[in-house]
């Protein structure tokens, strides 16, 4: 009962907001930057019909996913290496900390100089961002493993490889997953920032391009797609988390 009522209220709220936006009396000048829901819907429909939306969406997802996967794999790999070689880690940790603290978007112009304005610099930016997030958590996870657990396996006769496979990999998994979850949002944000910077495709480019042409309707339409993407992403993430909750103690 209350749940139904809550949903009804939600629908009412969004309809009221959109209705107000649609029918609020405005001057022509205001109209120019405010646009209207009906116009935004029409623009979206147009992009869907001519297929241009899929191209932009695909470009954004490609950058995000490719950067994310590369960043995760290399972050976990190097993280394990540094976690298992504490002396090496002690040597390089101040440098890692310095780069970790740097907002990676500051490197975007550099990547553009080096790699042009195609997918490569954007994927690099996202990968680097994700890499440092996942790297730090992996190192912490490997180093946080209970010494007593290691010793009990050693006394049973476990080799170094077996301790890694049967203990370290599993024990550090919650740390790695946590950082991977956080990294999804960073990957999304950085993909968009990179596309706002310099691009000829992608949702970020669509926003930039539309506003550059003083096309408020197009800007709102692109932002709408972005909101839908974020909602979808959050939903998928929270479901994955519920799946993993069982053995996380």
């Amino acid at each position, binding site marked *: 009962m209350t749940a139904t009522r809550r949903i009804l209220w939600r629908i009412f709220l969004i309809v009221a907001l959109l209705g107000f936006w649609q029918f609020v009396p405005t001057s022509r000048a205001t109209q120019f930057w405010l646009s209207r829901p009906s116009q935004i819907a029409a623009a979206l429909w147009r992009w869907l019909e001519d297929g241009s939306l899929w191209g932009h969406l695909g470009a954004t997802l490609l950058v995000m996913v490719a950067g994310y996967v590369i960043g995760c794999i290399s972050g976990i790999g190097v993280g394990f290496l540094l976690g298992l070689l504490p002396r090496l880690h002690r040597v390089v940790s101040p440098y890692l900390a310095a780069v970790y603290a740097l907002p990676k978007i500051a490197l975007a112009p550099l990547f553009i100089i080096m790699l042009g304005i195609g997918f490569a610099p954007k994927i690099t930016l996202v990968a680097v961002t994700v890499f440092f997030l996942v790297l730090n958590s992996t190192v912490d996870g490997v180093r946080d493993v*209970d010494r*007593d*657990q290691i*010793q*009990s*396996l*050693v*006394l*049973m*006769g*476990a*080799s170094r490889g*077996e301790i890694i496979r*049967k*203990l370290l990999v*599993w*024990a550090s*998994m919650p740390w790695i997953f946590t950082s991977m979850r956080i990294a999804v949002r960073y990957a999304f944000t950085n993909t968009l920032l990179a596309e706002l910077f310099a691009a000829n495709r992608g949702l970020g480019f669509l926003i930039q391009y539309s506003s550059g042409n003083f096309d408020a309707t197009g800007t709102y339409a692109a932002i709408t797609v972005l909101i839908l993407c974020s909602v979808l992403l959050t939903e998928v993430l929270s479901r994955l988390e519920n799946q993993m909750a*069982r*053995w996380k*103690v």
Partner: protein
Amino acid sequence: MAGAASAALATQGGLKMKIEFLGAAKRFSARGNEIEALTPTDLSIAREEFVALVGPSGCGKSTMLNLAAGLLEPSAGTVLYDGVPVHGPNRRVGYMTQKDTLLPWRSAADNIRIALELRCRATPRAEAAERVAQMIDLVGLTGFESHFPAELSGGMRKRVAMARSLIYEPETLLLDEPFGALDAQLKLLLLDELQQLTRNRRMTVLFVTHDLGEAITLADRIVVFSARPGRVRGVHSVALPRPRDVFRIRFSEAFGRMHEALWDELKDDIVKGTDV
């Protein structure tokens, strides 16, 4: 009988010694302070003997176990296992610590099996499954095989930990207050199981406890330690016949006398203000 004397006697008698502490001592330095955890100690444990170490906290009992397990190197003296000095992890012992070291992502059965998965003890899958099933039956965990440690009670986790140390049948078992935090009835049940398992498998056991009753119930010999710095105060043989009835032996006269004698020996340390 003092520790040194008993060690000397045992060696002279030509008895086969499993573990020998020969003037073994351990010092730690913490924040510039030298702490003597264990003064030079002589103690010999015969094959298949069940020896209990009792004494107040910080008396070096756990240090003795860590030395025997090879997790610590003595700062002076030597520790022999089967007559050979212990250097590095001693893989012929099973070690069950106060804190259970079960892996939270493995079910009870998978935790118990882990030793059989290791290359050095590689066991065919079917045989491993059978031995795990036997072990689960033995420690009374039937019905909880697929539960994760977080889903088990403290007592059940102890059972899993015990089954895990016993499944690969180490010839020596080192136990550091394994049942410390359990309620009295459950403790008795587990002590009974421990007695049967270690006797049937002819294990040598070194058992650290705070609880004099536990020590008298299970041990062949009881080594009493005094605190700070840790040293052996005395060694007592427990002249109670085996097998012992874990649930009733505490009401026997011999048990009472033994308990009183040990208590008298320990109470000086209690008066000093250390906890037993």
